[in-house]
């Protein structure tokens, strides 16, 4: 006897309820706050136009966006390139699979840690009287202002490279070990140079992993402000104030609620566009 069945739509009902219980308010609030500004004790006034004009004439915002591009762009480039080199070196130069696996596990450790732990580890290293400077002084070298105005953003990239190079490393490693060994035997029979072998054999197989890793790292460096919040507080001056940190300041320090909502909406749209590109890549 056939049992009662129901439409597959019902399979989606629980998560839809869960998500919209919170996200519905967030979206409505962001849009309302972008449209209307309410001064303390006053009436809501239409502010959307003003917000947009402020956004396009805000030089501090402009600089924050440039810093975000530098931070996420340079960070992603280093992480993907370094991750690729390490992944290929692991496969090519360590043939004992137990050793290779143990090394891979050690390399993956930083990625498993909380951003909050990684940030404090790097604060210990970078702070003026911290470990890096005391080691430098011990070696008779001059101390470096790791968190000074000119260096701070680069130091943050260094901390992120430490924590997240293992993500591209892992993805590219997985793609590399899936390449049939015969292809390399053929390449060596053909006496192809190392570079040519990389270009003809390795690259076509790892290309997707490289692109996906780069997009993922870029997205996550764009949306994560934990290290900035914990290591530099956006400073010194505005030296490490990225887009995310600027919105954080507008939200919680200056309490420009309407303007913060405008910037938040703009970033959400930006994130959605990058996410869309990412899913397009993943489908291939």
């Amino acid at each position, binding site marked *: 006897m056939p049992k009662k069945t129901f439409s597959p739509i019902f399979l989606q009902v629980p998560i839809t309820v869960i998500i919209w*219980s919170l996200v519905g308010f967030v979206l409505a609030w962001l849009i309302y706050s972008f449209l209307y500004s309410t001064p303390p004790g006053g009436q809501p006034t239409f502010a959307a136009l003003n917000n947009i004009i402020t956004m396009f004439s805000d030089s501090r915002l402009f600089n924050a966006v440039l810093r975000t591009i530098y931070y996420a762009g340079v960070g992603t480039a280093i992480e993907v390139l*370094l991750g690729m080199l390490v992944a290929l070196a692991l496969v090519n130069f360590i043939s004992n699979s137990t050793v290779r696996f143990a090394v891979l596990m050690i390399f993956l450790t930083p990625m498993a840690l909380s951003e909050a732990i990684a940030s404090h*580890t790097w604060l210990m290293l970078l702070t003026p009287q911290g470990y890096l400077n005391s080691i430098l002084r011990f070696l008779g070298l001059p101390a470096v202002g790791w968190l000074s105005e000119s260096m701070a953003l680069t130091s943050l990239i260094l901390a992120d490279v430490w924590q997240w190079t293992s993500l591209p490393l892992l993805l590219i490693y997985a793609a590399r070990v899936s390449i049939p060994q015969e292809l390399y035997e053929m390449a060596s029979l053909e006496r192809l140079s190392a570079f040519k072998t990389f270009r003809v054999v390795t690259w076509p197989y790892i290309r997707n992993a490289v692109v996906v890793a780069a997009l993922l790292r870029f997205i996550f460096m764009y949306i994560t402000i934990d290290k900035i919040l914990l290591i530099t507080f956006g400073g010194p001056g505005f030296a490490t104030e990225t887009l995310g940190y600027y919105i954080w300041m507008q939200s919680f320090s200056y309490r420009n609620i309407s303007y913060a909502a405008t910037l938040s909406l703009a970033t959400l749209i930006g994130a959605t566009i990058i996410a869309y590109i990412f899913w397009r890549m993943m489908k291939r």
Partner: protein
Amino acid sequence: MKLSRLLGLIGLAIFGLFIIGPLYITIITAIKNINDVFTIPPKLIPYTDFEPSSEAFDFIFNTRGKYTFITSLIVASTATAIALIPSLLAAYGFSRCPKAAMNDERSFFTLLTLRMVPPFAVVLPIFLYWNQLGLFDTYPALIWTYTVFSVPLAVWLLKGFVDEVPPSIEDAAKVDGYGFLDRLRKFVIPILGPALAATIALVWLFLWNEFLFALKLGGSRVVTYTAYLPQLRVGQRIQWNVLGAIGVLGAIPPLIILILFRKYLIRVYLGR
């Protein structure tokens, strides 16, 4: 050939040093007396350079520090538990009924967009939401927020796992008139077994490590170990050794999960 191998191994060793160095520094800082933390020359080798001290761990276990780990455990576990079954239903729908409304690929990608939402862009409205409901700085607020943001990750992982269960095993059941729930319960869940464990572990890990929401939605009554770290930096002296010790303790669950579920790790990012 020999030379390139040598250079490659040297390169790997340098990278290894770069990875291990900061981990080592965190561990030795955790077992230092506060006066031994920053010195010139640096004290780097236990027993030779400095006498290991349990000062930092004593501090954690004698103050509310220890409760922050319990808070993290409660919040991450409860949210994972709440998110699991609804996510499994949704993942099953996305996998088996891609033609049906709300189960199609477009809905799936829309859901996944939530994984890429910048926390800093939504944390203020979420803070106001819980404030308005009178739940700011309570367990329900943080748990529910975590549930919402772990659903996309859980669905993403589970869909990949359900995709690998051949639909043919359900066919007979379908002919017999079993509904979705029965098919899922009797045929899919038993096969998923270890994959379900991996999903739970990875979602839990993501929540255990979360910082930004924990910082803004808690503060005094609900303090996770990640949100507790910055609280150790206010005042006269930064308690570096306690920061290190919290880091060491907080790293234990992630390392266990990394070792146990290593082969599933890649799925967090690729879904397959």
